[in-house]
């Protein structure tokens, strides 16, 4: 383990686990999609064009906030929500590692049964 990677992880220390769970919902995915392309949005902006109530959207935003995917910022009297991609990048890397492990194991299996 290199120093670089260790400090890299430490500096990005955040709740990792709820990320998969947070993204396993279509409404939340669509909120993330909206927030990921543009500027920070208010709840009203996020509710607009959706069939969901303000309360429902607020609840979903709270889940995303808990997972660190969305951060809220104050702009005057308004609360704006902005997208933070880091947790998603981290779980992607985590899955990549597990995935790589399987690639190696399966290639050993291949050699094993084909010899």
């Amino acid at each position, binding site marked *: *383990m*290199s120093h670089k*990677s*260790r400090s890299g*992880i*430490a500096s990005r*220390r955040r*709740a*990792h*686990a*709820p*990320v*998969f*769970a947070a*993204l*396993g919902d279509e409404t939340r995915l669509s909120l993330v999609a909206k927030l990921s392309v543009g500027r920070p949005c208010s709840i009203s902006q996020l509710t607009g064009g959706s069939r969901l109530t303000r309360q429902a959207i607020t609840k979903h935003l709270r889940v995303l906030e808990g997972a660190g995917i969305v951060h809220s910022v104050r702009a005057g009297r308004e609360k704006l929500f902005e997208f933070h991609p880091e947790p*998603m990048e*981290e*779980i*992607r*890397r*985590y*899955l990549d*590692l*597990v*995935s*790589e*492990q*399987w*690639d*190696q*194991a*399966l*290639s*050993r*299996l*291949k*050699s*094993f*049964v*084909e*010899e």
Partner: protein
Amino acid sequence: MNDRIEKSIELKAPVSRVWRALTDYREFGEWFRVKLDGPFMAGQVSRGYITYPGYEHVKWEAVVQKMEPERLFSFTWHPYSVDPKADYSKETPTLVEFKLEATAGGTLLLLTESGFDKIPSDRRLEAFRRNEGGWTEQMKNIEGHVTQKP
């Protein structure tokens, strides 16, 4: 975002051969690099030790779920359970499934690992931190071994 891993691989060997490589505990140990205590049995815990150089302290523990001959082999486990002091038993494990299909050239093997959304946050981070550098090293070991003993 995916919370599962899916792989498929074509093997030039009959389904019966692949089934044996997957479910005979000694054969499984050969390619997976683990020394198992005894045969796989559905509903039973399988225990052993990883046999990678430098990782021999790492325990292998899985619970065999399904053994449907030449079709499906599955187990649950805790990926990256590398800390001997940690108790992983209370965590929800991930599910690993091997599905076999006969093809003209041999066997199509489908692998799925699912349930990553259930791993507690501390562990996920820990697993990630411990393995980030470790895997690079391990890849070299694997590569060396495969080249020597194809």
